[in-house]
């Protein structure tokens, strides 16, 4: 047991529900399962993160011994969000989404269409094309997108159920490299904004929530941490703290000091 294992307040409740496509989710921390060294690590990170939704990828059968992954996810009662990781074109992403829908009996998809292996940045043209076609085919589309407010707007207009801007490229752990753009995306969003990718440590997740994101999706920051379960607990608390701070309303930043102790009634010494 660590201090972070102590019970925490319900992350979402009637007063502050987190709802995607009409479905309430009990946690604002969404967890990717990629990068974990073993299924045991997947299981312990899910437990200590308190997540209600995990992403999975679709790959050729037999590539890896993954037989128990769905069992693990079921055991923890988490919703499964298949992704289209590795797809470079709208066509590939569409087929992958359709395979995932058949395999997992869900019409939700984390849409990823990346331009190259070096940056893993979304290809905006292919992404928007895929989003439009998937929405037309009845999918609930959660697109992994650049931190571009205009692209986020176009994805919303296309009918996406959320927008998921990156904080930094996948797996970099650089945090939020353009917080101003994230704020812009939040400011005009009509669907949930989920900060996806780039999170390195707990303060990054807290910052995303303080900027007004509705949730955070991360994988590597937890699965590749030296102690994945402890980092999962840290992320759980960071997301809760960031959300609470956002709702509480922070003080404005000032250029000069402002005493918090009374200035009247000072003794003359």
């Amino acid at each position: 047991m660590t201090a972070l294992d102590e019970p925490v307040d319900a992350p979402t409740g009637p007063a502050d529900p987190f709802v995607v496509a009409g479905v309430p989710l009990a946690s604002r921390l969404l967890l990717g399962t990629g990068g974990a060294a073993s299924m045991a690590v997947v299981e312990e990170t899910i437990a200590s993160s308190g997540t209600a939704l995990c992403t999975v990828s679709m790959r050729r059968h037999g590539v890896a011994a993954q037989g128990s992954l769905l069992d693990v996810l079921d055991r923890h009662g988490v919703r499964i969000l298949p992704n289209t990781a590795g797809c470079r074109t709208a066509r590939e992403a569409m087929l992958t989404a359709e395979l995932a829908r058949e395999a997992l009996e869900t019409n939700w998809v984390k849409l990823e269409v990346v331009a190259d292996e070096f940056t893993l940045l979304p290809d905006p043209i292919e992404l928007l094309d895929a989003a439009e076609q998937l929405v037309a085919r009845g999918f609930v589309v959660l697109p992994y997108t650049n931190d571009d407010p205009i692209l986020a707007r176009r994805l919303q207009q296309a009918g996406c159920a959320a927008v998921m801007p990156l904080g930094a490229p996948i797996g970099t752990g650089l945090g939020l490299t353009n917080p101003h753009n994230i704020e812009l995306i939040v400011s005009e969003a009509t669907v949930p904004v989920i900060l996806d990718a780039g999170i390195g440590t707990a303060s990054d997740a807290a910052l995303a929530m303080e900027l007004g994101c509705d949730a955070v999706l991360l994988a590597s920051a937890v699965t590749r941490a030296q102690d994945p379960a402890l980092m999962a607990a840290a992320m759980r608390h960071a997301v809760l703290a960031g959300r609470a701070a956002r709702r509480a309303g922070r003080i404005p930043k000032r250029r000069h000091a402002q005493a918090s102790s009374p200035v009247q009634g000072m003794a003359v010494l």
Partner: protein
Amino acid sequence: MNVTVNGQPRDVATGTTLQVLVSGETGGGRGGAAALDGDVVPRSQWPDTALRDGSVVEIVTAVQGG
């Protein structure tokens, strides 16, 4: 007849259905999906989908992923 399954050549009996092929590969458990010649085939249609010589089949399943 010769088909390709997940990139590997495979010799199967004439008239083999997608249902038989996938069941043999995966045990037919939950979590699998199949595409035949680039089109996704719903599970309900596997028993009625016969492979042809030269068919290209992809069988996928959920794995850990971000």
